[in-house]
């Protein structure tokens, strides 16, 4: 059975922990955590990931900048990106999707929604 890898980029330890718990429900998914956009880019440079789950509001480098950088990276330009944010407006959603995000989830997150989104993007049953 194929094994997948996921990079969670989130500055809040609590949200990271919650996402790790949620994504542990996806079989064969290995999760790596990053504290912010810069840490995320560092991890993306050293390994290949099948999916990225990122917050928007983060110190040092926010999620939208990270999406831009990932989309210009030849290795990860096609990697699915899930945005997780407190911003629930249609414009924010549109902006994230225009920058190249594949899905947009608003906080407070519902674990089943995160799981379903990740499974759908990875095409896992």
């Amino acid at each position, binding site marked *: 059975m194929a094994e997948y890898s996921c990079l969670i980029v989130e500055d809040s*330890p*609590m949200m990271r*922990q*919650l996402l790790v*718990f949620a994504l542990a429900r996806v079989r064969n998914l290995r999760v790596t955590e990053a504290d912010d956009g810069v840490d995320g880019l560092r991890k993306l440079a050293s390994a290949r990931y099948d999916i990225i789950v990122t917050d928007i509001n983060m110190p040092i480098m926010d999620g939208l900048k990270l999406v831009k950088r990932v989309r210009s990276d030849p290795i990860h330009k096609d990697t699915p990106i899930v945005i997780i944010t*407190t911003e629930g407006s249609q414009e924010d959603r549109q902006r994230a999707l225009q920058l190249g995000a594949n899905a947009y989830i608003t*906080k*407070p997150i519902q674990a*089943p929604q995160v799981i379903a989104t990740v499974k759908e993007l990875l095409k896992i049953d």
Partner: protein
Amino acid sequence: MAEDRKSRPAGSDAPGPDLRDERDQFLKKFTRGARLTEDFLREVEELHNRLRDLERENAGLRAKVQADEAVRELLSKIDLLEQEKRELLKRFHSVEAVNSEFTLRVQEVESEFANLANLFVASNQLHSSLSPRGVTRRIKEVLAQLVGAERYCMYLANAEGTELVPIAHEGVPGSELAPVPIQGSRLGETLCSGAAAVSDGDPTQGTLAAPAAVIPLSVDEKVVGVIAIFSTLAQKNRFDTVDFELFKLLGQHAAAALVSASLFATTDRKLPGLEAFLDLSV
């Protein structure tokens, strides 16, 4: 014969009249016999034909009977298959019902798991800091990230027990927050009753005067403050079961975590010596 010869004229070969009659009669008889034979042969031929027809008919009937038997066999097979199909459909429906029940149960378990994960993470975070600022930051994070609160404030009762004093807030300018008298205020009512007050309306529309939820904060069964969630994020338009569980958890752990962090800070973050735990055996 001698008479015959006598009756014939002399020197003639022509038969006498008697012989002629005899011949004619014979010929007549022969002709009739031949006709009868012909008739008989025709009849035999007809009977042969009839027999062939009957044999053909018989073969046809036999084939038809065989075909009918095959049809009967097929019909009985169809009946059996229909019965089998009905049985299979019945089983399919029952398995489908079990399956959908199972799917529903799995969804419930997943949802329950997600709720427990939320509570575990919240509890874990509340107790993962021993600085009052760290605990406050985590309380705020639970409110913002897990509950979806947008504007909120945490109040603690003053030593006199007359006012609730704001100690941490988010989404509301500090200038709008003042100590709230315990007597005659909604926040004070919650402090006195010790029971969370959750508004029935849309929590996104809550105000400072009519908060969406007020949660009492207890330390050792004594209510020492409240958290007022004035309003929630736009996408959070109702409180779910897990939110009520989070309110309970915050009520029981937030103030305790804050108090223990404060006490730890007052001792210059020194851990108590072993002797402090020696008399704990029960």
